[in-house]
């Protein structure tokens, strides 16, 4: 994929904090991440890992008590981190970066018709009015796979099923012709059969409009389906980033190991599942060393003292763990990961590009 070379959005050493009842919550702890043009990037993490905060920062949608402490968000020669007024953000929101939220029931206005809500976006961003806007609404609805758009445009959100509502939300996002589409858990509220359809629709839109998509999800099945690249987040930090095949078949960070091992799909019936003990750290307290160390039974001493840097495994793959330091002792990953690695090796012989295709 030659498109991959150009960086569209670049996050550099971003720190984001919230002040809450006199305490400071360090939600994003020094993240650097590049988003390439035309790719689909998946950000994986548990709730509270900061993945939603990260993408909301890209659109200036965080709550008032949050602030960027340091770092840059470079997009189109502008530094979004310096934006302060809504007016500045209006030029970005929707037009450049649009978002599809998790729950289509709460992201649509129940008091307005679907057509009105799509038209609102068209009027604001494409300066379409009257009959032209109505025609565009029908076109958009048809495009996202809603049959009989003329009639459906006059209906209210409650007359649509969950999957249909999510299609409408995608139509609204597409009405602004954005360059980047952020999907925040786009399928969590949907049934499995519908889930696959919605993912297919987003992919189709991506191809058609040459979109760059950022998925936020905790469902590794969704990630495996859509992502070109994966960033794994834990406690406000990206602990591992790599291509889809690299993260799934050759993960390096103990947290990624644990995450992949604890999936019931890989479990053996009748035996306990691999489980991660404990809970994620409290970000009100400054985290020392590797944030995952207290839950990692194989943690090294240094993990508790010093924060590991990003070690590069390959040009596209890097992980924040001391295990990749040349001085680190050899720690064997759990059994499941070894199985996955074997699978990955077998694939590399037949050409690595298969999973990326």
């Amino acid at each position: 994929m030659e498109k991959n070379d150009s960086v569209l959005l670049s996050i550099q050493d971003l720190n984001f904090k919230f002040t809450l009842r006199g305490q400071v919550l360090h939600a994003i702890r020094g993240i650097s991440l590049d988003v390439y043009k035309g790719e689909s990037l998946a950000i994986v993490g548990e709730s509270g890992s900061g993945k939603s905060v990260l993408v909301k920062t890209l659109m200036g949608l965080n709550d008032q008590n949050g602030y960027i402490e340091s770092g840059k968000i470079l997009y189109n020669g502008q530094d979004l981190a310096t934006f302060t007024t809504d007016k500045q953000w209006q030029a970005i929101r929707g037009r450049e970066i649009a978002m599809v939220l998790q729950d289509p029931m709460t992201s649509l206005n129940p008091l307005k018709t679907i057509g009105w809500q799509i038209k609102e976006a068209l009027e604001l961003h494409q300066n379409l009015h009257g009959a032209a806007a109505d025609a565009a609404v029908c076109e958009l609805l048809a495009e996202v796979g809603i049959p009989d758009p003329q009639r459906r445009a006059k209906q209210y959100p409650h007359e649509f099923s969950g999957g249909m509502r999510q299609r409408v939300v995608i139509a609204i996002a597409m009405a602004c012709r954005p360059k980047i589409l952020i999907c925040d858990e786009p399928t969590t509220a949907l049934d499995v059969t519908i889930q696959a359809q919605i993912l297919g629709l987003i992919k189709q839109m991506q191809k058609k409009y040459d979109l760059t998509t950022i998925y936020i999800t905790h469902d590794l099945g969704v990630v495996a389906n859509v992502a070109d690249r994966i960033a794994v987040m834990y406690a406000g930090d990206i602990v591992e980033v790599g291509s889809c095949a690299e993260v799934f078949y050759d993960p390096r960070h103990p947290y990624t190991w644990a995450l992949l091992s604890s999936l019931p799909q890989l479990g053996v019936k009748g035996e306990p599942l691999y489980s991660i003990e404990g809970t994620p750290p409290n970000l009100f307290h400054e985290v020392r060393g590797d944030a995952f160390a207290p839950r990692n039974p194989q943690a090294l001493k240094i993990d508790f003292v010093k924060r590991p840097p990003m070690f590069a495994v390959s040009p596209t793959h890097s992980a924040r763990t001391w295990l990749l330091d040349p001085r680190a002792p050899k720690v064997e990953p759990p059994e499941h990961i070894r199985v996955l690695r074997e699978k990955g090796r077998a694939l590399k012989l037949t050409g690595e590009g298969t999973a990326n295709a």
Partner: protein
Amino acid sequence: MPDTRKKLLELDHVRVQFGKKRRPFVAVKDVSFDIYQGETFGLVGESGSGKTTIGRAIIRANPVAAGEIRFDGRRISGKLSAQEDRQVTRDIQMIFQDPMSSLNERAKVGYIVAEGLYAPGHHLTEDQRREKVAKALSDVGLLPEFASRFPHEFSGGQRQRIGIARALIMEPRFIVADEPISALDMSIRAQVLNLLSALQKERGLTYLFIAHDLSVVRFICDRIAVIHKGDIVELAESEQLFAHPLHPYTRALLSAIPQPDPIAERSKKLLVYDPACHDYTQDKPVWCEIEPGHFVLGNQKELDGYRESLAKAH
């Protein structure tokens, strides 16, 4: 083989409906299945298919419009004597989906867990009650001290454990687990799943596990029933169901399971279920045991087709 096992719960042509008598909304049409002692029975379906309604009918939160539910050989649907009622309430407990909304925010954990014991007929002193709460909490891997705290002080996984402790304190024999892990984070899911299966081994509990996530169901359940729009369309042992799904809806559901493996995930073929593919105008569908332990809903023509495909597979 199934005859040697004891049937703990039997649903016999159960129908549940809501709304007015004149224009009822039938959520569960005509459902029959048995759950054996000590097994984990999975009930899978999309939202609105009636799976939770069945679970609630079993704990008697939803009245049964027709048919009968039997627990341990005795009828538990419809009117019961006060004593029977108390016994059944004790024996059948439920674990709810969302630990964030199923705990009383204004009550302390000790009270939430002990609430069932305050019902008349238990005659416990305050000390005995406290002891029981402490034991229930430590059984689910929490500290007994937590009894004096409020739910908001706990994380999602811990709150779900409180919900489990609340069910366990009644010493039930049967637990209806309604999507107990779907609201939890992935690293916490495994903890709760392990806890549920450890408790089952320890106490010989029987579970009805309601879920929409087939991969979890496959891992934890012995037998699975697939429900669609108030009808159970297929029922089989887990591995059998995954190896030889017969009903088109089951096949569509299985084809859509997200797999955490990029290659398998991208090469998967999606099947779409269209209810119009059944022609039930003349030939009415029947619930038929197509091979031992494997039930499927279909009319005679479809059943013949299923038999053929099974014969080919074996």
